[in-house]
């Protein structure tokens, strides 16, 4: 088992949004998180990534096996596409960025400053970062925002390649990625109960 989340409860801005979420991912598995806006998909992913402490429950994963990609891509617009990727490769202790560039068709853009890219191209660069990290479990938050149909297919191909090489992916998304083998987890049933006593006086009555 590469990632196991047990009975997790998360809060956003101090308000509990999800409770009792359990999930498990093995090698070669992908799990798609679905749910309406505000249900807590992003918060859940941030808790699993360790950016935020959960209210309850715990995460089991091999050390240094998770990589998180959020709404923002972490791209420096003054650096070129290559320099951006090379930086993350160095941080994660890998060296090969050519495969990531090929997978997301960034070759013709490699020497352009990232600030000159379109929104979709930036997103592709952000996703290419996942490949250079060499991490086994991808935690992706809305990875397909501003991607066109072709780029979504490119992304699905990258996820498939990652799964085939024994990786795993946890993806929060609203659209159909065309990953037929992925399981789907609907978060709506895990919505946290609203706080019972909302007013201070209520506690004493």
């Amino acid at each position: 088992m590469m990632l196991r989340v047990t009975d997790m409860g998360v809060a956003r801005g101090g308000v509990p949004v999800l409770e009792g979420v359990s999930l498990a991912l093995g090698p070669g598995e992908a799990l798609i998180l679905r749910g309406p806006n505000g249900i807590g998909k992003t918060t859940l992913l941030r808790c699993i990534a360790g950016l935020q402490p959960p209210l309850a429950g715990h995460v089991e994963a091999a050390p240094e096996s998770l990589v998180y990609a959020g709404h923002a891509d972490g791209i420096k617009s003054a650096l070129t596409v290559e320099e951006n990727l090379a930086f993350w490769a160095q941080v994660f202790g890998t060296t090969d960025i050519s495969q990531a560039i090929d997978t997301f068709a960034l070759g013709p853009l490699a020497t352009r400053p990232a600030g000159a890219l379109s929104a979709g191209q930036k997103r592709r660069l952000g996703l290419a970062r996942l490949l250079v990290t060499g991490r086994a479990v991808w935690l992706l938050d809305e990875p397909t925002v501003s991607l066109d149909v072709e780029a979504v297919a490119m992304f699905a191909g990258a996820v498939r390649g990652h799964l085939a090489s024994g990786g795993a992916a946890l993806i929060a998304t609203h659209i159909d990625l065309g990953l037929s083998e992925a399981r789907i987890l609907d978060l709506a049933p895990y919505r946290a109960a609203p706080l019972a006593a909302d007013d201070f006086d209520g506690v004493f009555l």
Partner: protein
Amino acid sequence: MIALLTRDMRLAVRAGGGFGLGLAFFLIVVVLVPFGVGPQSALLSKIAPGILWLGALLACLLSLDRIFALDHEDGSLDLLATAPLPMEGIVSVKALAHWLTTGLPLVLAAPVLGVLLNLPGPGFGWLLLSLALGTPALSVIGTFGAALTVGLKRGGLLLSLLVLPLYVPTLIFGAEVARRGAEGLDVTTPLALLAGITCGTIALLPFASAAVLRVNLR
């Protein structure tokens, strides 16, 4: 770590990085003070160490909010926090990069600008030494302030208010070294205290900065 340092240095010197900002501010302050004080070279040489130190400190303050704010805006900070670098290492490298791009140029420019303020001859060496010893503390303390205010929009004002009182001891002892040096007095005590402040902040504050950064990223 080295990758982060080279990236920060590269970003600082590229377009929009704000590399020359502190240096330009320092230059402006030091050039304008003689106009304000008037043509009294004796008075000017008396206040020169203090003015130079104050100018360097304010120039340092000017670029503090950039340390984490830009990385927070574009999401790099979240990604760095999940990268295999310890948070203490990240904040130390950020402080070092800030010192190399802001503090070190100020140290090197100070003797040149000292000429404009009629700084007495023996003072140049001590000014250089006191700034070289003191500015790392300014960067480390500033990094702590930047970590405290990272999530806030327009946190620059709050950052200045938080950091300025923490800068006071460094300013007092740094300027004292430069003043005593310029007047040919013994500098041992303020120099030792300045070195102590710098060593203490470098040893302790990265842990505090890392802790508040973790809280702010939630």
